[in-house]
């Protein structure tokens, strides 16, 4: 790891100020960033830890909306969202392993936008709003392809607001070595319609499967997506699975998510 300066401010305002300098980077739970630094794939001059910022932690449900602080760990979401939004709690409770869940945060996961990460699928399917230190970003405008988001340099995710769906579930086909999703599908049904978000599968990262959304809006049963086929074009191909395999899994996992919702 290259050397860097470290600060741990107590407020969002102080963190934003500390991130202003050239080459400063936010540190959430560090479960992605620290291994990245250890492999010398990044070399920020200053790390600004968000871990001591109390106003960025916690889960609250009110008026059909679940608000999760950007610094809330996966373990805390698994515990605290269990009653108001069980599908989200289950997703959080199956990220990585217990030690990763003790540290990793929702803000870090969304900011990182790993093409195989779980939270991006929940945020996209549930039509979440990403709240930062300076604005609110609708999730449909947030993800910008592989590891890219609408966040500006130094912008911090302070909260994520999820409208709680009437029915929802996440089906994850585990890649057992990385513990990420080989393919994961989050299905959410609300009065606004059905949204289906797919992670792990596409080279451009998380995406909505609109053909399945239309079919499920008419008939919210696993059978409704049985006849649909996802094209293999643009799907990830690696030693864990070919594009064709992943495309097929998208259909299977969508049906499983609907059955569980």
């Amino acid at each position, binding site marked *: 790891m290259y050397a860097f300066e470290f600060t741990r401010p107590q407020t969002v305002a102080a963190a934003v100020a500390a991130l202003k300098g050239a080459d400063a980077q936010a540190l959430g739970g560090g479960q992605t960033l620290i291994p990245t630094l250890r492999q010398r794939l990044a070399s920020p001059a200053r790390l600004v830890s968000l871990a001591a910022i109390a106003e960025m932690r916690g889960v609250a449900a009110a008026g059909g909306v679940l608000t999760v602080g950007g610094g809330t760990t996966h373990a805390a979401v698994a515990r605290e969202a269990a009653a108001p939004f069980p599908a989200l709690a289950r997703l959080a409770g199956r990220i990585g392993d*217990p030690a990763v869940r003790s540290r990793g945060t929702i803000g870090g996961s969304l900011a990182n936008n790993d093409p195989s990460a779980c939270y991006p699928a929940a945020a996209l399917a549930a039509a979440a709003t990403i709240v930062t230190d300076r604005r609110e970003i609708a999730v449909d405008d947030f993800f910008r392809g592989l590891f890219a988001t609408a966040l500006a340099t130094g912008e911090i995710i302070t909260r994520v607001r999820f409208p709680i769906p009437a029915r929802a579930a996440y089906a994850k086909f585990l890649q057992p070595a990385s513990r990420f999703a080989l393919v994961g599908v989050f299905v959410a049904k609300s009065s606004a319609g059905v949204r289906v978000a797919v992670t792990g599968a596409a080279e451009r990262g998380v995406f909505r499967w609109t053909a399945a959304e239309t079919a499920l809006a008419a008939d919210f049963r696993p059978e409704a997506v049985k006849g649909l086929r996802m094209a293999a074009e643009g799907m990830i191909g690696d030693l864990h699975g070919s594009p064709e395999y992943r495309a097929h899994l998208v259909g299977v996992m969508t049906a499983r998510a609907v059955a569980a919702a």
Partner: protein
Amino acid sequence: MARVTMTVNGKAVAGEVEGRTLLVQFLREGLGLTGTHVGCDTSQCGACVVHMDGAPVKACAVLALDADGAEVRTIEGMASADGTLSPLQQAFQDHHALQCGFCTPGMVMSAAALLAGNPRPSEHEVREYLEGNLCRCTGYHNIVKAIMAASGQGAAIAAE
């Protein structure tokens, strides 16, 4: 360099560390607590698991300065002062849950975290909880047996 203070195995400790010093480096090199192992560069093996404020964490993926003020427990804090092993450690010995022993500190700390929150887990829950702890020797079976025995459920898999 910056000053870091924390409580490790019940004792207040302090040291001078760099921003990039990992918690596991501080424990091993700063405090001489070499029971916590480092088995990988990618935060995937779990050999370095310790408890931080009661929760299991990978000490290779936490900066020492981010643990400032925390309550840390390592494998050295598991036995009693006179060296008597904790029931969980004794179960590992009794059930041959280790061979080379490299993964064992992380396994014990993960298992202790599991049992603290779920005193009578099912065998499935034990296996799922150990997802982040890799063992190259035992095939996991005896580790699961030891944890089941330590939770007072030895008979549950004694038939195997």
